[in-house]
């Protein structure tokens, strides 16, 4: 078996008395979509936060592309190829969609300390950015400030940014949230293709999407993984049904 | 030939009271002279050096004034006067008198009609020799404050219990008062102008400490006394002018000022009044455009000063008598009365360095 891109072992994080992450071990292989599901407040976002560095773990290790990144800052992890989206959209509101993506492109190129060349005239920035926007279907809205985009469009923009970073793994926190049925469908198709580029750790409550996409599913409840398996395994797991799925089918 | 005078003084902000007195004293003399050839342009410097410079530039370049005057504060004066005299204009100071302009850097076009910064402190030092053995002295931590204590120590021969520098603009003096209480001093010399002095005196009065206070005149001049209230009673201060000085010019000045403005004059008003008198007297006998002649007329100091004897030293700062005063009440009104004359024909320590 190939080496996992991302490997998390025995991660623990407490907020006061609450153990939000309670010894989580999890990995992500090249080419796969690994879905992370679980009840609200189970600790999924907290886990993502720890992986990308916005929250520091209490103990445990996070290895990415063969290296321990558990001690690095947010920006350094991103530079190494961890791309993420936020559960609540997080963009530069005054910038156009295009410029939001361009920022990611320039970050990827590692060249933010250039003071003189106008970025908007810089084809090495605009072209990759437009390509990405086109891929997520936002090309027509490229010049609209992020603050004026609708909720769904902002979600698309978040994905575009992660794409533009050329990430080696994606951490997507509820990308379907706020997407209409049509948008969800498009996005599902899109993620399906995206996995070839880089594996995806997908946190999502939209079970239709999860079941359609996931190669593997892990179920997180109260900070612990209670089950990991294929779609079929998980669907049938009675513990998962009672803790999470309810009578969903 | 008409004389154009530019008066830059502080008419807004915390120090406006001094500027208002300066302007009023100056204008009283101009008005009394009835001289139609004198034109005074007054502007407010807001107690900001940059603004004072801008106004000075305007007065010199645009209004083409011949003489500048009116600045209350040393730091503003330092911003304006050196460059004004460098451009060939007279500067006649109505109050500010930093040591820097009295010694080696004196200038033929710079006159000071008030005093030299150290004078009043020196007088208190001399006075303190009589009754006090051990003094607690304090002043704000800026050049005028340091000059003040230096001047005081130049004449005071006794022991110092402590020499304390407070913060400029400080409003609470509990810590200093506690030190005074514990210092074993038999007297306190404090130079705390304006609001600082008001705050200190009020707090001192409440503290239960009874060591006598003294200070230079402008800490207890007419503009702040009403605000300090009875807490100021009995305080000894020094001044080159006191309201009750027994001479004709003074009686007339005090009466006229009161009539015109409905309040008692302060030191600042007198100084400005004399500055105006000096200019008037020179203008009567010389053309202001003829710098040499005008300067010579100014140097004669041919005026009847409410201060009594007044003449210029070699550095163009006054030689005058200095008195010790005491705060008293006249009816409901707090004011200073003369206790004794401490210096006669007193000049300053820097004149010897002035080579003109």
């Amino acid at each position, binding site marked *: 078996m190939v080496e996992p891109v991302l490997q998390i072992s025995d991660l623990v994080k407490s907020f006061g008395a609450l153990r939000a992450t309670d010894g989580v071990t999890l990995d992500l292989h090249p080419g796969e979509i690994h879905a992370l599901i679980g009840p609200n407040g189970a600790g999924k976002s907290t886990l993502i936060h720890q992986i990308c560095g916005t929250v520091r773990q209490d103990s445990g290790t996070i290895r990415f592309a063969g290296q321990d990144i558990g001690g690095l800052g947010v920006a350094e992890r991103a530079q190494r190829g961890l791309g993420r989206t936020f559960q609540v959209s997080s963009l530069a509101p005054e910038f156009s969609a295009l410029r939001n993506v361009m920022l990611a492109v320039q970050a990827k190129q590692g060249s933010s300390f250039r003071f003189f060349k106008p970025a908007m005239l810089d084809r090495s920035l605009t072209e990759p950015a437009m390509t990405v926007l086109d891929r997520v279907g936002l090309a027509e809205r490229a010049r609209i400030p992020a603050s004026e985009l609708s909720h769904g469009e902002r979600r698309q923009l978040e994905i575009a940014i992660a794409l533009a970073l050329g990430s080696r793994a994606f951490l997507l926190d509820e990308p379907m949230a706020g997407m209409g049925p049509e948008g969800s469908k498009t996005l599902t198709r899109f993620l399906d293709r995206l996995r070839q580029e880089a594996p995806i750790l997908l946190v999502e409550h939209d079970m239709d999407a999860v079941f359609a996409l996931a190669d593997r599913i892990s179920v997180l409840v109260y900070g612990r993984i209670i089950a990991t398996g294929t779609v079929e395994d998980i669907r049938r797991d009675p513990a998962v049904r009672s803790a999470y799925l309810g009578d969903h089918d | 030939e008409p004389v154009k005078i530019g008066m830059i003084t502080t008419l807004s902000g915390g120090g406006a009271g001094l500027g208002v007195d300066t302007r009023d004293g100056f204008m009283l003399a101009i008005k009394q002279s009835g001289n139609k050839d004198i034109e005074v342009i007054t502007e407010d410097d807001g107690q900001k050096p940059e603004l004072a410079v801008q106004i000075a530039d305007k007065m010199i370049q645009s209004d083409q004034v011949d003489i500048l005057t009116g600045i209350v504060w040393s730091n503003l004066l330092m911003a304006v006067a050196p460059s004004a005299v460098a451009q060939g204009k007279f500067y006649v100071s109505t109050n500010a008198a930093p040591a820097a302009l009295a010694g080696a850097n004196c200038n033929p076009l710079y006159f000071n009609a008030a005093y030299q910064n150290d004078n009043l402190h020196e007088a208190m030092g001399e006075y303190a020799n009589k009754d006090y053995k051990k003094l607690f002295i304090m002043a704000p931590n800026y050049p005028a404050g340091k000059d003040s204590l230096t001047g005081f120590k130049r004449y005071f021969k006794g022991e110092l219990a402590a020499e304390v520098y407070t*913060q400029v603009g400080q409003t609470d003096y509990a810590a200093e008062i506690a030190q005074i209480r514990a210092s074993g001093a038999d007297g306190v010399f404090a130079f705390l102008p304006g609001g600082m002095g008001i705050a200190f005196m009020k*707090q001192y009065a409440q503290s239960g400490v009874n060591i006598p206070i003294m200070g230079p005149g402008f800490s207890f001049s007419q503009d702040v006394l*009403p*605000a300090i209230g009875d807490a100021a009673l009995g305080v000894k201060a020094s001044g080159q002018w006191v309201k009750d000085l027994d001479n004709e010019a003074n009686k007339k000045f005090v009466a006229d000022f009161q009539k015109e403005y409905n309040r008692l004059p302060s030191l600042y008003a007198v100084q400005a009044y004399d500055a105006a008198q000096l200019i008037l007297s020179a203008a009567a006998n010389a053309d202001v455009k003829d710098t040499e002649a005008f300067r010579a007329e100014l140097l004669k100091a041919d005026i009847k000063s409410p201060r009594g004897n007044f003449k210029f030293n070699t550095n163009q700062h006054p030689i005058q008598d200095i008195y010790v005063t005491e705060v008293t009440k006249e009816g409901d009104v707090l004011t200073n009365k003369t206790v004794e004359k401490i210096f006669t024909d007193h000049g300053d320590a820097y004149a010897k360095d002035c080579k003109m």
Partner: protein
Amino acid sequence: MTFALALEQLLNGLQLGVMLFLMAAGLTLIFGVMGLINLAHGSLYMVGAFACATVAAWTGSFWLGLFASLACAAAAGAIVELLVIRRLYDRDHLDQVLATFALILIFSEGTRWMFGSFPLYLDIPPLLQGAVPLPGGTQYPLYRLAIIAAGALVAFALYLLISRTRLGIRIRAGESDREMIGALGVDIRTLYTVVFALGAALAGFAGAMVGALQSVQVGMGEPVLILAFVVIVIGGIGSIKGALLGALLVGVVDTMGRFLLPKLFVLFVPPSQAGMIGGALASMLIYIVMALILAVKPRGLFPPAHA
């Protein structure tokens, strides 16, 4: 240096701290809770002191003056809120800075227009005159003890108001999402006017109380403003407890610095020099302390729980 002196200085420090808190209380309320940078806080402080001095001079009663200071400052606050501040909540902090800066100019010059350029007389009420003996043999001004009591009372009342009442909850809700609290049916506009007036009244109260110990003059509010900001920032913005503790810290540090630093330098340089250097350092001290604290705890000593 005797023990009694050190003790007295410590007490002075605490007292200065409470006084600072009194001056900062209104600002904490407006700034910490409504999220509004109100540079004109010092002006409201001045309004309180002038109102008190004027009414006390007319009526001969400090207490009537104190009441007038509350009323005038609250009225001034309410008017300012209705005419100006109200339009600025959903603006950038910077617009608030400019507007309230403009208000400082208007208030200062307006006050001078009405009262002239000379400081006013305001004295401590006869009831609180004089000094009382303290254990250890020294004396302490009664009025300063009264200020300590007033400060403690204000701190306690504010704490209750903000954390325990529904009014406080709504105010804080408005701070976190103004539109939303309105959309839920709370008249946040009027509420904010009331809070602003309350903050102004506190400023006026402080102006009158502290004004009796200082000089009542135009511009008296400006140093207060800076100090009050220092205090609430050190304590952690929006926290009443933080403001109180921050104020005490500043008070003690400042007093002890003024007292001890010159003594420290006497060990190295002549007394006169020591006084200057020590004095210079003492005036920088609270800023140094503030920078150190913020460098280590970027959100102040007691940041309110929110991120």
